[in-house]
């Protein structure tokens, strides 16, 4: 099976923000919180990534309670696996470069 290529920053933060079901605008706010105001994702970027992730089966769409028009997104089991894999990959990368900080001290 081919290995999944590394995620873009947008993909990673979108999956992170979907720990709980959330709608589009809420997702943008959540991403800002998670990234401490560093990542301000545009709706065009967000929507494009969401469409592809939904197609890949990483996330799914559910109707929000009381508002049929507004769609809420949730992480699927597959999406969670991919997120964890990416997290471990990033963590490993950080650990591999940890000596840089020690050298600077």
């Amino acid at each position, binding site marked *: 099976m081919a290995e999944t290529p590394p995620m873009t920053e947008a993909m990673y933060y979108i999956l992170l923000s979907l720990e709980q079901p959330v709608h589009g605008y809420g997702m943008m706010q959540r991403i800002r919180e998670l990234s401490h105001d560093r990542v301000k994702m*545009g709706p*065009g*970027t967000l*929507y494009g990534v969401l469409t592809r992730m939904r197609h890949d089966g990483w996330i799914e769409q559910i109707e929000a309670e009381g508002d049929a*028009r507004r769609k809420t997104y949730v992480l699927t089991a597959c999406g969670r696996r991919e997120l964890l894999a990416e997290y471990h990959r990033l963590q490993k990368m950080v650990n591999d470069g940890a000596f840089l900080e020690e050298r600077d001290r």
Partner: protein
Amino acid sequence: MKREKSSLLDGLVQKTEHLIKKIKNTKWLRTLPVYEIERAEERYQIMAENGWLLKKQGSSWERYERGTPQKLRYRIEYSQVKAIDGIQEMTDEQVDFYADCGWELVSERRGVYVFCAPAEAEPIELYSEPKEQIRMLRSVHNYIGGIGLCVASSLVGRWVADIWTDGTDFFSLATLYAGDWLILFSIAALVYVVWDMCYGYYRCHLLVRRVKKGKTLHHTPEEKKSKHLVGKAIKSFLGISLLITIVGSIVLIVGRDKEKLPESGEGIPYLLAGEVYEGERTDKNIFGRGEKNEVTHTKGILAEYYHTTEYLIKDDDFVSLDQNLYILRSQKRAISLADSLLEQSLFGSDDGKVFEHPFFDYVVEGRYTMVAVKGNMVIGITCISSDALREGWMTVLEVLAKKWD
């Protein structure tokens, strides 16, 4: 009664005032091409600052309505275009999603969407990642490329096929018929369309390349610098040429030399029904068409052309004669034009019978139409009469032979 008239008049005045007000509060501008994203966004912003708000965008014109001058930001978004599926319209969900983020949909037309947000609210840009914006721009690229390829290949293919096969079919007949202006028009239209598509494709390619390098689109007027002056100048020149040829074609068609048929057939290259058949000219014709005993004369690059319609009546007998005479500049295409005339004739047939005549180079007959060629002269005659046709055609040919000898 007087009161009724007065209220009717009041209503009319009110409606007129309303219409005048509407016209005064509406402005129309030419829609910019799809690849002029930055210029279009800048235009909407400036117009809004001057109190003209974009209301509707068509493929050729966009409508603005007078409103409160305000600082607005406009962004253009394109829906996905795929070569096989065509344009995929933006979903309501995406539109609602953008609205949640402060971007309201102002106008939409086949795959092109204009969103707007108050500048003070400092809305988040639609695209924070160039990679995603490339996808959107590529869809414009595909759109222009797909249309361009279809149009250009069909036009160029049509011309190449015509030249290679040396065929004179309906297209060639049309150019012969309408004369020089229509030929110029077709050439100008072809060059304009092909250039417009190539230029649009190139401009889109530049945008994609820029965003690929990580540079964002220039959304603010201060950042924008006008380039591509040569390309724009060529496009304007071609556009003006096209406009002139359109006007020329219309003038030619409207002002075509149309005259009543002469009484005598002497000194004219075409045939009069009276030279072959007996009877009086009549304005009543069995087809109910508007043409009545008239001759149209056009001089073109490829040919000098005469078209006549004539109707004779004698007792209960009726003769209708419709004639196309081409005096070609070159006799190279005469035979193929003759065959084409027979095929195109409503009363002709595809499999005409060729018969020999000592004077003519080529004579072919099919149902009610006969076509004859002598040198560079090609004549197609459709005659509906109660007389035996073959004998009638022989008389026609004899008269024509005397005229053209």
